[in-house]
């Protein structure tokens, strides 16, 4: 009997010849990532060592990464003090994969990890962030855990009591129509699966559309698999993964690819043809409340948000700049743009995208999590409506429980910025048109 990618990776990491869905394993961790919540992980880590007489040292500091992104630069003395404590800790413990608040090497953890070549195909990656599923885009088995569980990983070097998930196979064929892309595909899939349809499962992506998709698009897909409840999302690594690692992440050593066996067992197979896919919108207040853009076109928007670990990469900013170049953001709408990393920010400067967006009236913010989770900046007023390329629209998500958040692609967000209402980019302001 063959194995899925998740079963193969977890077998290798737990020193077994094979694993099956439902097995409980303790996989060795290749990469353990935290952001500002490392402050809590540190406390729990010390609590584990308390009374043992052992020195509180992590199992392997070279496999730990800490990236500041949720509140950068710090919005309060409390956050600033947490960040200060973490800085002291990474120095003390010799953690070199540390990305501070910087305009050259900073950014969102889920962008920095791939960009710097920390994530490799076949790895087990854990992160104290639910969107750690992103890293499945490079063929890793990557999942979110809580802070206490991370403290346990720091101490032991492996994750405890991990159930090998059953895998849902998603086979995607066809070419995306103009102004439709990976974000529309993943919103469509979440709408079909529902918010809990993939709970305790892995989603493995296949098909010609996926093979032709860039790593950036794959990151968008895997990022949001957790919104269907998935433990992990995986695109089996291929030539595009190797290209990304070599050309964009500067990885020179040879990389082994982990692919599923032809006779692997899947709990379910879903076929999607994107040839006729329309732009998709997740409506308030759940991510699985997905409709084609036409169903909500004309809805007034107070704030447009483009960025995040879901859609803050160079190709996303290019889509927005192409639509907004030479145009203006609607008078009673504000537009916030936050690139996923400092490197992407610099590339967008070089390409002229930042100038296009700023001249159109957008506020381009520093790389980081920005307004996505309502902790830092870009909060909504009472009863306001946001249209955002981020990944969650839960009640209160952007800092105000009386506000509405709609989720969409960069093309829909940019077209709607010009009109001030939710707009189908195939009809409204678009590249070279109007």
């Amino acid at each position, binding site marked *: 009997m063959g194995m899925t990618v998740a079963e193969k990776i977890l077998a290798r990491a737990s020193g077994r010849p094979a694993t099956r869905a439902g097995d*409980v394993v303790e996989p060795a961790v290749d990469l353990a990532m935290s952001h*500002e*919540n490392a*402050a*809590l992980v540190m*406390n*729990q880590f010390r*609590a*584990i*060592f*308390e*009374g*043992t*007489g*052992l020195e509180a040292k992590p199992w392997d500091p070279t496999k730990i990464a800490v990236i500041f992104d*949720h*509140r950068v630069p710090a919005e*309060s003395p*409390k*956050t600033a003090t*947490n960040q200060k404590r973490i800085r002291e800790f990474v120095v003390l413990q010799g953690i070199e994969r540390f990305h501070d608040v910087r305009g050259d090497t900073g950014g969102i953890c889920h962008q920095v990890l791939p960009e710097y070549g920390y994530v490799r195909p076949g790895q087990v990656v854990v992160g*104290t*962030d*639910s969107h*750690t599923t992103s890293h499945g885009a490079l063929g890793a088995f990557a999942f*979110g*855990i*809580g*802070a*206490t*569980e991370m*403290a*346990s990983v720091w*101490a*032991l070097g492996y994750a*405890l*009591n991990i*159930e090998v998930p059953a895998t849902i196979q998603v086979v995607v064929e066809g070419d995306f129509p103009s102004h439709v892309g990976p974000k529309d595909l993943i919103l469509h899939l979440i709408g079909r699966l529902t*918010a*809990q349809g993939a*709970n*305790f499962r892995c989603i493995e992506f296949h098909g010609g559309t996926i093979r032709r998709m860039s790593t950036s698009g794959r990151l968008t897909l895997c990022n949001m698999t957790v919104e269907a*409840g998935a*433990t992990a999302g995986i695109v089996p690594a291929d030539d595009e993964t190797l290209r990304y690692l070599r050309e964009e992440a500067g990885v020179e050593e040879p990389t082994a690819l982990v692919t599923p066996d032809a006779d692997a067992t899947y709990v379910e197979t879903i076929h999607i043809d994107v040839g006729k896919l329309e732009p998709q919108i997740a409506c308030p207040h*759940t991510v*699985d409340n997905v409709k084609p853009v036409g169903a909500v076109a004309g809805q007034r928007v107070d704030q447009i948000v483009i960025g995040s670990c879901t859609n803050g990469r160079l190709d996303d900013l290019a889509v927005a700049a192409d639509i907004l170049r030479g145009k203006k953001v609607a008078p009673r709408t504000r537009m916030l743009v936050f690139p996923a990393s400092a490197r992407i920010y610099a590339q967008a400067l070089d390409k002229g995208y930042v100038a296009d967006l700023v001249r159109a009236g957008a506020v381009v913010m520093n790389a980081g999590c920005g307004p996505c*989770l*309502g*902790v830092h900046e870009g909060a909504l007023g009472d009863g306001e409506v946001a249209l955002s390329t981020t990944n*969650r629209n*839960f*009640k*209160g*998500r952007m*800092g105000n*429980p009386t506000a509405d958040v709609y989720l969409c692609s960069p093309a829909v967000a940019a077209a709607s910025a010009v009109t001030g209402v939710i707009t189908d980019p195939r009809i409204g302001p678009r590249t070279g048109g109007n």
Partner: protein
Amino acid sequence: MPRVVTVLGDDISTDVIYPGRYMATVLPSETPQFAFADHAELNAKLKGKQIPPGSVLVGGQNFGCGSSREQATSTLKGHELVIVASSFARIFLQNSINLGLRIVTAPGIEAAVGDELELEADAVVNRTSGKRYPIVPLPAARQAIIDAGGLIAFTKRRLVAERGGAAG
């Protein structure tokens, strides 16, 4: 017998349980004040100690979906609530076990505020409506963490077995 203090629907996210704007607060002793901060009435009752420890919060399917923030668990643990729901999201379930928040998976659970629930070993019995809801047991590997008194104690024991030192 524990009473139901609130009944929530499906897909209750960690943003609802513990809004993101309070995430700079990490100490488990400081998180309880922000439980359901955007539900003013429930938050006020919890903060005002009007809800006795052991009271039950009833949820629908996929309780605790969304962010991995552990504050969503420590904030409920701080009030010693018991969560009975049809199903739980993975990370929230794991966090609850790790921190010792009592969660019970009882598919189809139906209850109203004020109902008395009896939590038996294999079922939740709603004494007010007379209905019985079988419990889905936790996997044995997870039960071991609960039996050890939470993940800190469990890992401490493992660490000492591997590296030597005192049993703490």
